[in-house]
């Protein structure tokens, strides 16, 4: 991964060859929006930005900054017309006006959400009643995933879901605990657990 070797430089004023590790340091200090945009600068930049190493360093870097995004989950209980959507609201600090930066409408309609979970800046939003719709979103990149359908829970229908990082594989995982089936008086039942693994960049 190289920028241009000095001999091939086009312009005299860009008189320095910037080594990759310095370009990386510069890119790490950019807002996510700029990072996404600069993937089109050249192939070596795009490759650098896609590397797990870059993603990890960028995450460490952003953890030291103050959060600037508010996530609102809106269900049927909220004023009509706002239903069933997730809103990302940017907030740059005290005294600044918060702005709606992104909005995502969920396809099937949502009555009630569970309390959202977060891990490494990713937000997991699940609808409360099983079999629930589970969404994972990355407010920084505005990516939004809907997880595959989960098996319904026969106990109380209330969604029991966890979200975290597997320290061995460094993958993000979503865990759903449920009662698969039972007899009428719950004296004989079988419990279960479903684990979803998100892609490493998810």
């Amino acid at each position, binding site marked *: 991964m190289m*920028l*241009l070797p000095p001999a*091939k*430089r*086009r*312009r005299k*004023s*860009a*008189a*320095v*060859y*910037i*080594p990759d*590790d*310095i*370009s990386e*340091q*510069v*890119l790490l*200090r*950019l*807002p*996510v*929006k*700029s990072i*996404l*945009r*600069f*993937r*089109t*600068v*050249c*192939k070596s*930049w*795009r490759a650098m930005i896609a590397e797990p190493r870059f993603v990890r360093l960028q995450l460490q870097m952003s953890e030291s900054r103050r959060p600037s995004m508010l996530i609102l989950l809106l269900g049927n209980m909220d004023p009509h017309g706002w239903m069933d959507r997730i809103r990302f609201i940017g907030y740059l600090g005290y005294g600044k006006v918060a702005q709606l930066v*992104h909005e995502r409408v969920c396809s099937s309609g949502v009555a009630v959400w569970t309390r959202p979970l977060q891990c490494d800046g990713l937000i997991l939003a699940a609808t409360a009643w099983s079999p629930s719709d589970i969404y994972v979103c990355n407010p920084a*990149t*505005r990516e939004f995933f809907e997880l595959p359908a989960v098996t319904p829970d026969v106990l109380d229908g209330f969604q029991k879901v966890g979200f975290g990082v597997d320290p061995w594989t460094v993958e993000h995982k979503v865990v759903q605990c449920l009662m698969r089936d039972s007899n009428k008086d719950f004296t004989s039942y079988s419990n279960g657990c479903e684990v979803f693994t998100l892609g490493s960049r998810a």
Partner: protein
Amino acid sequence: MAAATDDAGDSNEMIRVVSSDGEHFEMPEAAANLSLVLRHMIEDDCADAAGIPLAVVAAKPLAKIVDYCTKHAAKSSGLTIEEAEELKRFDAEFIEVDTDMLYDLLVAADFMGVEGLSKLAVQRTADLIKGKTPEQNRETFGIVNDFTPEEEEEICKENEWAFQITKPPSRLC
């Protein structure tokens, strides 16, 4: 000569360095110690009257780096709030340079292992380019676009919102 000193601040020894274009500079040992490369050279007894040669650092950026290190070494420990503020102001003014000098400093500070200055130059570069278009960035860094227009279009589509810049750009994507 200069043996490794644990108490660099008390050392009055002057360290001489020579730029790639043959200019000589002097700075206190405490200042030179802010550069990892120079510190190792001093510890290995390589600092002599002829000066430590820095083969890839030209006189212009080297003069700036000597300034930076001298200022920071004089104020390295036990800073009062006012002194810390003053040092911050010094840094802010120090890094107000044209892009050529900025890139010289980026590379030279990295080469010499002057951590504080590296961070300062990296942050300044990031501040300069963050609102720019990819094309403006290629120009700044002297990078040739090795994507086909189709490939470029494809990446743009993945995160279209990131290509909407509020300032008037010459070319968006």
